[in-house]
């Protein structure tokens, strides 16, 4: 005689059916995002691949699709990211060191931490308004690379701070105590022991933050970077354009040729991001392996 007869068996069988349905639902949900990602990539390549050639990389923007390229956008992106890193990296790491190694337990510090978390959630366009008011107007930097880099630096700063704090936190305390026991000062300990240990993690976080910055469009629109630029910048005070702005510009035009150019620009942008992220992952893996060895 069955031990689980009748209604019991029916309940168990219903449970199993529900479980199977649920499993297929959540599996579908998990795959949904990846499927859309695949469709997006295929679509972009289908639209843009035929516009992507060496001339596209080495030409300036043009009214004529056949002659248009992204030379100024690539140069602008490189300039912009260089200066962004120059500002954001030391300030971000400095903040992280302060919070992890120096900050007293005080409610003001708590506010500071909360503030950093909230800054990470401020819409990027609001940073654009700040940049417009503070850097473009008040500091008279105009629509220059410097104004753009400062704006993007403020935007990615919270990301760098959070990543750098994690990396510094992961350095074992015994290391610091060992150094103090030898009479080293706090800064000597940080400079010679903590930072070298934390550096791969900090760099990984910085690369990821910059790859976020590279794709930003809205704040640069705000500071007025949507202009026709047919030259490469020679100084940080020159006007500039960047890849996402160029893509936005082409996307907004009705002609299919320009949409094709936008897609080609997207392929280049995604390629750069892929390179940066691969770099970050390799860095992290190398670091982990060294840690184990």
């Amino acid at each position: 005689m069955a031990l689980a007869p009748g209604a019991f068996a029916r309940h168990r069988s219903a449970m199993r059916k529900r479980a199977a349905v649920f499993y297929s639902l959540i599996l579908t949900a998990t795959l949904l995002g990846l499927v859309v990602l695949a469709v997006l990539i295929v679509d972009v390549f289908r639209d843009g691949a035929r516009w992507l050639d060496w001339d596209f990389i080495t030409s300036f923007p043009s009214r004529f699709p056949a002659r248009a390229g992204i030379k100024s956008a690539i140069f602008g992106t490189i300039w912009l990211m260089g200066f962004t890193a120059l500002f954001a990296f030391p300030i971000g790491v400095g903040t992280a060191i302060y919070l992890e190694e120096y900050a007293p337990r005080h409610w003001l510090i708590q506010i500071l931490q909360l503030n950093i978390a909230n800054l990470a959630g401020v819409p990027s366009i609001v940073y654009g308004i700040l940049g417009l008011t503070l850097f473009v107007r008040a500091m008279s930097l105009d629509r220059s690379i410097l104004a753009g880099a400062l704006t993007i630096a403020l935007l990615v700063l919270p990301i760098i701070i959070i990543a750098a704090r994690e990396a510094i936190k992961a350095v074992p305390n015994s290391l610091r105590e060992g150094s103090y026991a030898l009479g080293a000062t706090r800064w000597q300990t940080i400079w010679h022991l903590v930072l070298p240990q934390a550096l791969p993690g900090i760099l990984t976080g910085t690369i990821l933050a910059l790859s976020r910055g590279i794709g930003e469009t809205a704040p640069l629109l705000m500071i007025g970077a949507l202009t026709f630029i047919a030259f490469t910048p020679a100084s940080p005070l020159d006007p500039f354009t960047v890849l996402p702005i160029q893509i936005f510009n082409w996307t907004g035009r009705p002609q299919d040729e320009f949409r094709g150019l936008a897609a080609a620009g997207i392929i280049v942008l995604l390629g750069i991001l892929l390179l940066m992220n691969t770099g970050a992952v390799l860095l992290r893996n190398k670091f982990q392996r060294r840690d184990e060895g």
Partner: protein
Amino acid sequence: MNNPEKTGGHNPASITTPKGAEAPDTSPDGSEQQVEPRITIAEDLLERPESAPGAVSGASAKLVTKDMHFFYGDFRALRNISIEIPENRVTAIIGPSGCGKSTLLRCFNRMNDSISGARLQGQVLFNNMDLYAPGVDPTEIRFRIGMVFQKPNPFPKTIYDNVAFGPRINGFKVDMDQLVEESLRRAALWDEVKGRLKDRALTLSGGQQQRLCIARTLAVQPEVILMDEPASALDPVATQAIEDLIRVLTQRYTIVIVTHNIQQAARISHRTIFMTMGDDRAGFVVETGETRQVFTVPKDERTEAFITGRFG
């Protein structure tokens, strides 16, 4: 992909009792009845005379393992386990730490299933049916074979909802209030919590939490309760309460208890299984027998060494 609900078959009622065993609650056709679990509330605890300690010959084997080996990947954790767990007895499993006591316990309700790479060879019989046969639903086994863990693990819900959880997920259609009260009474917790059933279970003390976990297990009316060092995280007073409870529960349930505490095994169990491990760290059974015999005249010198504290 790892589909966790691997039941492998389409036969939900594949676990059956041996011929002649009583299954009092099933109507002959099993079709139109209400869901009526084998619960008769407030049944006299002492109604089964054959459950009295000492009546060994009358007890049948509830759980049997035959030539069972257990592996984690390539590592053999248990070697050649052939034991019998008699019905309505407390069987204690003792042995040095790391010898696989808990692993063995978790073989009885297939809790090892979720560990990737875990593999069992041989047979584990429950009421003479193979628990690891294809088509057996592990969730059904676990509902018939309850388990109490080393550390009290009440759910972050109310006391009431903790006890009602098992009956609800298993589709019991019973007077839930009454079932909760009865389960708490049997776990000797009712008097302490009857006024605060809607409080969070985490507001209870450690000992109360563990008795709540026992009540939670009793509520689904299992035939067997597996206990994995249920008192090791508790203070002496709470331990005493759990041990008293186990004694009472024997009259109704088959209990298998893993314990580190040799005195505890001697105090509460009828039978004792002594395990140890070989040089390959695989656990195996050295000796089984009536607890009195194992503790007074052990057959194996390794057992003697262990219970007299010279080893482990």
